[in-house]
Structure formats: structure tokens, C-alpha cells
């Protein structure tokens, strides 16, 4: 049985990756899962300098979901290169670095800094709903998406994944813009902007007022968007949004994803990633699929 998938020339041993921001750089989870069992680890977003993130409370649970407004707290690219990359190199998995910034220059600085580092791919976060500048401000405007993609691609030595926001009217427009800008792969969805009010304190549940909704509650939206994007572009798509089991992951593959990311589920089941990987193999065995890539886009 062949579980390998190919993303822009990078071969992953299986289609299961981690969703940025839900897995740190893997260290905390290495007590629970063998990181070498994963197709790739996608790191938490890293910027050119350390970011302190948002005030607390930063999270709130909602029915079958959660909202976060962490605000991309990160140690900056220098510490990341010194500490996190060597940590991940101990494992037989691909390293995908999620890159965040406030301006195009910020993103480019990180991409340039990573050019000579031993990492496999870059994921550009143009869709974080929880920071005032950068993030989603780029990701909601097709023209801005195309421009920043092109700027990043000029400098990147590794294949570039553009991470798309679901907070748009038609996600195929930003998807096509990223493809036109030279993106090698697309990943979606980032979180959906939401709000929760604590009626007893009569205040917002999150200090940031709004946050990004994730978890099983968003999965149907995510599957629909992956289907739409996979049918609108020629480059591979990484699907994510509420995946907690192999069954969830297989929906995304059938909708058109080449690989999938497990995100929020890591918070309540630290071994969710390997359980998804095992479950995909069991499904392939049950239905007689030889190559996992046969599943991609099977449902038209």
C-alpha cells in the first residue's frame, strides 16, 4: 500500500500533517506521538522578530468548536532557526515553516532568512484573523494575494504554500490569485472569524473581541471550500478544518485535497495525527485502494 503523496516535488510519507499553530514546533507533542510517523510538521507561524501576541483570555470554547485569538505569539525567526529546526531534524518527517508578517517586507525577510535552512516547504499565512496588520488583510483581496505570492516566490528557495482565508465571498478568487502569483500549493481553511459574549460578565469572551473559529463545527464549510478550490486551480490543495478522525480526513481527500492537516483536535487528543494516519490506511485496505493519491478528488 502506498500512502506517499507529492506536494510540488516534496514527497511526504503520508498525507497527514499538522495545522499551523496547533502543534508548536512538535516538541510538546513528541511525548505523545512519534513525529516520524507524520507526513509533515507545519510549525506555528514565525515572524522576523518576536511577537508577544494578544492579551488573555485568548481562547473560548463553543459548541463543537473553539475560538482563538492568540495573535501569532512567536519567538522570531532567529531563535526558531537556532532551536526549532534542529529539534525537528531529529525526526524523519518533512518540515514546513509557517511564515507570518505585518508587511510584505516582513514576510520576505523571513523567507530570505529561511532560504539556506534545511526546511522542506514554506507556508505563508495571509489569513490570520487575529492580528491588526498583515494576516487576513492580505488574504481577503485577490490582487494583494497575487502580489504577495509573487514577492515571496521571487525569494523563496523552497516550494511555497499559500494559506487561504475562508472569510471571503468566493474563495476560488483568492485561490486563483495565489496560483497566478506562482504559488506551488494552497492550504485551506484558516479559521472563520467569530465572536462570543459572556452574558454573566457582559463582556466579550476573548480579550481581542473576535477570534478564529475552528474544530468540528467548521468542517462542512472547509470541505465545501476545498472542493471548490480543488476544482478551480491546477496546483495541489492541503485540506483542513475540523479534522479529528480518519473519516474526516478522507472526506477532504475525496473532495480534492492531496494532503490534510489535523489542527484543533491536537488540543484534546494529542495523538490525533497518528490515529488519522492509521485510519486512512485501514480505509484504503477496506476498499482496496493501492495509492492514497487515488482518493484525491474522487467525488466529483
Amino acid at each position: 500500500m502506498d500512502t506517499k503523496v507529492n506536494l510540488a516535488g516534496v514527497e511526504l510519507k503520508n498525507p497527514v500533517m499538522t495545522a499551523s499553530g496547533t502543534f508548536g514546533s512538535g516538541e510538546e507533542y513528541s511525548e505523545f506521538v512519534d513525529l516520524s510517523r507524520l507526513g509533515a510538521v507545519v510549525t506555528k507561524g514565525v515572524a522576523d522578530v518576536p511577537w508577544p501576541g494578544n492579551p488573555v483570555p485568548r481562547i473560548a470554547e463553543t459548541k463543537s468548536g473553539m475560538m482563538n485569538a492568540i495573535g501569532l505569539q512567536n519567538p522570531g525567526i532567529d531563535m526558531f532557526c537556532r532551536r526549532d529546526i534542529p529539534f525537528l531534524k531529529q525526526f524523519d518527517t518533512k518540515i514546513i515553516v509557517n511564515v507570518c508578517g505585518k508587511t510584505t517586507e516582513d514576510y520576505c525577510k523571513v523567507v530570505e532568512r529561511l532560504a539556506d535552512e534545511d526546511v522542506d516547504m514554506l507556508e505563508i499565512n495571509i489569513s490570520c484573523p487575529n492580528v491588526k496588520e498583515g494576516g487576513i488583510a492580505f488574504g481577503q483581496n485577490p490582487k494583494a494575494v497575487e502580489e504577495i505570492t509573487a514577492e515571496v516566490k521571487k525569494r523563496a528557495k523552497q516550494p511555497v504554500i499559500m494559506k487561504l482565508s475562508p472569510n471571503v465571498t468566493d474563495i476560488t478568487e483568492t485561490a486563483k490569485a495565489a496560483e497566478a502569483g506562482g504559488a506551488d500549493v494552497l492550504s485551506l481553511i484558516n479559521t472563520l472569524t467569530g465572536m462570543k459574549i459572556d452574558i454573566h460578565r457582559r463582556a466579550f469572551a476573548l480579550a481581542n473581541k473576535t477570534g478564529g473559529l475552528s474544530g468540528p463545527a467548521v468542517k462542512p464549510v472547509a470541505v465545501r471550500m476545498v472542493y471548490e478550490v480543488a476544482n478551480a486551480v491546477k496546483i495541489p490543495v492541503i485540506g483542513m478544518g475540523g479534522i479529528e478522525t480518519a473519516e474526516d480526513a478522507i472526506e477532504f481527500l475525496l473532495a480534492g485535497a492531496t494532503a490534510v492537516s489535523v489542527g484543533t483536535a491536537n488540543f484534546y487528543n494529542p495523538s490525533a495525527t497518528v490515529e488519522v494516519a492509521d485510519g486512512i490506511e485501514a480505509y484504503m485496505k477496506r476498499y482496496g485502494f493501492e495509492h492514497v493519491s487515488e482518493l484525491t478528488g474522487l467525488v466529483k
Partner: protein
Amino acid sequence: MSKYKGQAAVLSQEQIARDIYSLWIELPRIASEAAPGQFLSLYTRDGSKLLPRPISICEIDKLQGRLRLVYRVTGKETGTELFSRLEPGDSLEVMGPLGNGFPLENPGRAFLIGGGIGIPPMLELAKQLPGDRQIIAGYKDELFLTEDLERYGELYVATEDGSAGTRGNVLDAVREHGLAADVIYACGPTPMLRALKAYAEEHGIVCYISLEEKMACGIGACLACVCRSKETDSHSNVHNKRVCKDGPVFLSTEVEI
């Protein structure tokens, strides 16, 4: 020290005050590792409640592999309300032990101060801490765990409504009884911890405080439960220590609350 996630057997459950429950569970792998001041993540069986609930450890029985959790039900249809319905023979998914507990090496006279639902972790601490233990427990009105606490130290009670002990807060009890200490261990609401931090700094004594914050993962990955630290933190290179992993117990001088 390693974290473990698995099913614990529920041994007993008892309501010990309004909205306050005492739960004994059996899980030798966690009990053998646990230390006072650490906490567990408890998972509900309700799939719509995704996140674990962090609950402090009240007592550890290493010999029999048991743990006691004393927690407050925070409202209708909450995760803690679901836990309050557990009965002997049921199982409960837990992960732990999590975080760093209270350092036990400090000699001399100690204040063990708990406020409200911050009182339970003081019980195991009182059992394990060497030296002179003065336990000060602050309640709104209804008392709980007083008989347990009395067995392991000199207990002083404060109630906001004056129905028992000193009327007022834990520092009012300290003043009323003319108590003094070389080290403070505390867990409770932030205003109480803030007052104790100021008291400790004024008196030049060491003070350990256990903080609480909304958590998702409980293991230091999601960066939800940060508190402001005086020094640059080693994880994110900013001024944010993680309550779940770097804490929940901090030296009062290392955090700004």
C-alpha cells in the same frame, strides 16, 4: 516526569458544599508521578465540549494509586456539571500530571493560603510540606475541607460574610491572628494573589503563587494561557510564560499579575 493520558476509574463522588464536589479516582500511572500544585486535564464525554478542563490535584495517594479532585461546578450544562454526575464504577478520561507543583524544599514557617476553589491544592501541599504549616483558607461563606486541613497544620479561616473565622479576606486573618511566615504558598483568585504578592514583597518573603488562565492544550503548545513575566521567557522570547507548562506555580516576583 512524564505525562499520561488515559481512563481513570471513578471510586467515589461527594458533594461537600454548594457547587463543590469531591471526586476520588484511581489511576496509578498519574498518582505515582503527581506532586502538590500540579493539575490534571479532565475530558467530558460530550463531543460538543472539545477542550479538557484543568482541575488541580487535592490529594495524592501514591500507595493505592488514587487521586482526589475537589472542584466547583461552574454552571448548568458545563463540563464540570457533567463531572459532578460521575458515579463509582464510571470511567473518566484524564491527562496528567501537568505543570509544575510547589517547591517543597523551603524550610521554616510557611503560610499555605487558599482562596475559594484555590483551597483544594493546599491540602496535599500541607501533607507533604516540612516545617511549620499555618494554613489560611478564605471562603465566601460556606466552608469545605476544613476538617481535612486541620489535620496537617494550624488552620485559620476567613469568610467574606463573617459567618466563620475572621470576617474578611485571608490577609485580614493573618493580621487578626498576628501570624508571620518565611515563605508563602498560595492559590486562589487573582485579586487575592495580587495582594499576597504585594504583602510578600513588602515583608521581603518568598511567595509562590499558582495561577489560572483559560487553556486549550494544557501541555504548552497552543499559547492560550500565558501570563506576563518579568524576564523574557525562554519559549517565545517575549514576556509571556505559559501557565500550563512553565507554571501554574510561579515565584510572585517572576510574574506581573
